[in-house]
């Protein structure tokens, strides 16, 4: 067996190592960039030795949660986008499309609106997770066992519209203009002023979601040949759908809850990386997770470096880049198809 006869391993370990390395670089840059200037190495030493210097506090209380959440939320969005595109076999799908992001945003808005978020800070993230879970369960109830891709997309559209309407209703009825403003800002998405407890809440749920989605890689590869063929290759499609819906609800729900609605990462990143993995949906998952982390970390660094005050919201930046990208993508698909 010569090397030449082996199928070339497009998008194998070298690509994943490069993306993981780039994620680390982006993470370190995110730690180093901010409004408080300090010596990063010195701050790290202080933090490790337990010295409560200002620099160490800025590092552990401000920079670290922000960078870690950026990486985690970006990973969730990129991975969930790739997973949804693989499941729906549609390059335009992302967590927003199937209604999970919308449900998460609604859940968090309800927490705002009910005043729970004011009474208990963690009610906001919990509301987001609950909203994503409700959206995912509604999606599953609508699309059900054995339903086709079209049903799933229509169910996602329905849930998104309903969640959007309820969110607008909450804003509409809000008696307190400050609460409405707060909701508006939160919906724009940001990583600013997040703390380690946010990470502790979102982290474990995200990890479970990642594991569920990554374990679906072989099934997604098989699914690129259609549902009958995937089933004939030994994959249970109902279980695959359940696994991907639950996985994306956990990861995206937890992410949206702490960062607000950040769109387009799950759409753009898988699209850019797909050619590098030979268009294989299974290989795309992990690559897309790292790609999402890199994209969100750099977008968040840009938010802090841009000479715009108040700081641009992260969701605004990703939308400003992502929407024209989506436009171009649709235009190209229209001309090709």
């Amino acid at each position, binding site marked *: 067996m010569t090397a030449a006869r*082996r*199928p070339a391993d497009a998008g194998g370990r070298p690509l994943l190592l490069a993306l993981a390395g780039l994620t680390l670089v982006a993470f370190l840059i995110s730690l180093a960039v901010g409004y408080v200037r300090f010596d990063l190495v010195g701050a790290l030493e202080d933090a490790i030795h337990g010295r409560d210097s200002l620099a160490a506090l800025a590092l552990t209380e401000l920079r670290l949660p922000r960078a870690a959440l950026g990486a985690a939320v970006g990973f969730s969005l990129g991975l969930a986008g790739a997973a949804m595109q693989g499941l729906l*076999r549609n390059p335009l799908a992302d967590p927003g499309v199937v209604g999970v992001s919308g449900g998460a945003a609604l859940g968090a808005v309800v927490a705002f609106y009910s005043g729970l978020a004011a009474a208990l800070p963690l009610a906001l993230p919990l509301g987001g997770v609950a909203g994503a879970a409700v959206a995912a369960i509604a999606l599953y109830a609508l699309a059900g066992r054995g339903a086709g891709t079209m049903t799933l997309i229509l169910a996602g559209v329905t849930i998104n519209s309903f969640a959007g309407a309820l969110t607008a209703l909450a804003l509409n009825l809000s008696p307190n203009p400050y609460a409405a403003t707060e909701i508006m800002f939160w919906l724009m998405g940001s990583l600013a002023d997040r703390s380690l407890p946010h990470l502790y809440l979102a982290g474990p749920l995200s990890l479970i979601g990642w594991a569920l989605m990554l374990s679906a890689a072989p099934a997604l590869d098989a699914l*690129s*040949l259609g549902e009958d063929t995937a089933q004939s*290759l030994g994959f*249970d499609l109902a279980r695959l759908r359940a696994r991907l819906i639950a996985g994306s609800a956990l990861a995206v729900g937890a992410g949206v809850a702490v960062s607000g609605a950040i769109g387009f990462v799950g759409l753009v990143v898988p699209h850019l990386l797909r050619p590098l993995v030979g268009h294989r949906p299974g290989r795309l998952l992990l690559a897309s997770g790292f790609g999402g982390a890199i994209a969100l970390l750099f977008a968040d660094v840009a938010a802090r470096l841009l000479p715009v005050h108040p700081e641009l919201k992260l969701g605004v930046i990703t939308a400003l880049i992502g929407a024209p990208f989506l436009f171009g993508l649709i235009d190209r698909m229209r001309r090709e198809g």
Partner: protein
Amino acid sequence: MRVVVSQAVVRFGERKALDGVDCAVGGGEMVALVGPNGAGKTTLLRALADLQPLQAGEARYDGRRARELPRGEFARRVAYLAQGGEAHWPLRVDHLVALGRLPHRRPFADLSAADRAAVEAALAATDVAHLRARTLDRLSGGERARVLLARALAVEAEILLADEPAAALDPLHQLAAMAVLRDVARRGAGVVVVLHDLTLAVRFCDRVVALAGGKAIADGPPAALTDAVIAAAYGVEALRGEHRGEPFLVPWRAIGAGREGAGG
């Protein structure tokens, strides 16, 4: 493995796609499934593959139901090639064919030597080895059909169910694909192939099952495809003959058109 579908009934709304059909295939046997459009050929093939829920009747695999076999084992033993095969992403040819090895692989493990040998054999058998590094969107329809057939061959299953594997192929590759399938049967697997080409069916298959209106109207050696069966199924007359000891059958003209011709 012996697959037996008995008294299968499948309804799509009012229409009965299958209306009490019996069909069986065993190792070493090549069976053609023929019949006009909408006769229930694909539905029966999907029933044989345990992809089609039956409203009545059942499918048995060596006497057992599919759900009594572990999912992975079933996938290794029964391969299915869908009609007009689709691939939703422009995968590379060798990557696509390797998907046929998924039932044999532990998740996330690399291709084993046996996997690679099966992929190579399948690429060679369907004459697409030279296209291995191309992506699917750079192939013609016929080349794509051969690649998808290679994917099904790569499973190396005991039962191979193929839905119109020859439909998009040029004459050379039609003959080659049928020879490959017959070779698979000669080496011990059971092969069921949906065909529109009666000439290929009669020449290459050991047994022909003719469907019409959801019922099996003939099941036997190629000779079972009598003029009466062909007339009932397709409404055509066939031309028959023999060339070097092999029978051939060519659909010749519509029965109605023949009468008009006689009158004029």
